[in-house]
């Protein structure tokens, strides 16, 4: 897939800390950080990936070692050791107060603890699969 044409944006205002949503409209984390890459002539900065998950949040807030450890730990829980906290920009479908992604929440780092809590705690309580309305 070709990279879509770039647009100018204020990453600090229009990207950071916004809500992410997966292809089924399930909330799946926030934009905890942004990966920036220089163009070849080093004149333009491109936002090349959204970084999301507890490790990325810890890093952004200054907890570098804790953050790196968390990123690696969550990557270690995936089948092929890829980093689920890095979401390349080509998977971004739309920008706004909510950022829609062409991914499944289950494949993202921000969702890892959700799965654990669901399987080990909530699903043991009767009625956990009933809708309240």
């Amino acid at each position: 897939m070709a990279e879509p044409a770039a647009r100018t944006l204020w990453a600090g205002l229009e990207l950071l800390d916004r809500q992410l949503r997966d292809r089924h409209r399930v909330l799946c984390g926030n934009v905890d950080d942004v990966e920036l890459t220089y163009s070849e002539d080093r004149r333009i900065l491109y936002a090349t990936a959204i970084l999301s998950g507890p490790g990325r949040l810890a890093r952004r807030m200054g907890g570098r070692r804790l953050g790196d450890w968390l990123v690696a730990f969550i990557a270690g829980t995936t089948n092929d050791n890829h980093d689920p906290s890095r979401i390349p920009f080509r998977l971004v479908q739309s920008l706004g107060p909510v950022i829609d992604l062409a991914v499944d929440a289950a494949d993202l780092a921000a969702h890892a603890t959700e799965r654990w809590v669901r399987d080990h705690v909530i699903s043991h309580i009767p009625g956990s699969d009933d809708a309240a309305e």
Partner: protein
Amino acid sequence: MKRILAVFLGVLSAIGGFVDIGDLVANAATGARFDMNLAWAVVVGVVGIVIYAEMCGRVAALSKRAVFDLVRERLGPRMALANLVASFLINLLTLAAELAGVALALSLAASVNYLFLIPFAALLVWLVIWRMPFETMERVFGLLGLTLLVFAVAVWRVGPDWGSLVHDSATPRIPSSETPWTFAYYAIALFGAAMTPYEVFFFSSGAVEERWTEKDLATNRINVLIGFPLGGALSLAIMALSHLVLAPRNIDVGALSQVTLPVASVLGRLGLAAVLIGIFAATFGAALETSLSAGYIIGQYFGWPWGKFLRPRRAARFHVVVLIVLVIAGLFGITGVDPVKVTEYSIVLAAAALPLTYFPILVLANDSDYVGEHRNGRVMNFFASIYLVILVIVSLATIPLMIITKAGA
């Protein structure tokens, strides 16, 4: 009919904020100590919460983002985390007090030591959150809470000189038995109760739970214009009744049973029954509001799936937070802490963090990314900015006043 039922989100938000366990007592206590000289603080608070709740309801309807999303987006992760920790602790303290309040209301009817009833109260709150649909919940407890209007009926039955009641409220002075410091401290407590942050956490998240859209902007306006002034009116009715019945007899209010006293003396057993139902509903409503808010704000800060409209399996972390919060608050309540003191402290501490919650709402209600063409008008921004200044002053004055007055003693 649907329109009428649609206002209960605002009604429940307001009842949980204005007349929860601590405020029931605080309102009665101020009426007994200051007569109507602090009524203005309630009115100023009502106007403030109406302005800001309208904004956050509008943002929620148009962008599906609730207040703590806005806090994180505008303050960044560090400041938002500071606000999260403060708001979460305040929610936890308040919830402990409300659970004790629910248990107290039950014990006034059933004459069992209330401490035994706290685990039962916590279980009941959890069951409602786990099983009851959001809209049923807000209607049941909003409607039951309206039985507190019996305070207004009692005021009317006492038959006060309405002219002087209004005149006293409109021309406040510091009673000779009080200092300017205690006067200011109680004014902040009343103002802080009106603008308690968990009201906007709950109201805006509730708007998302009910899937409001642009079509619901009118519902939003009706909710804030009916719900919050109604909460303020209940607050004033309790204050006025206490001023009329308790102050002349020099009775100071420090416990929940003394709040029910004037209604019982004016309206008899039936009145007392209505008050007990109202207190149960209001404290229960506040318990729902604070436990859900704890889940809402953490979920929104981290971007988790949250909300009662999802099956618990699909919002697992949210439900675990609510569960843990209820367990901790229940255990704290059982230690026998005075629920009235706990809420009074937590309101005042909350006042210190107010700008961190309200500033992002004001900014994003002006951001067309969030609200499209429905940005604040000039008049709205003018008044909202004035309130932001008030909030900053209040937040700076709160803790020094708490120390100077030894928490209003």
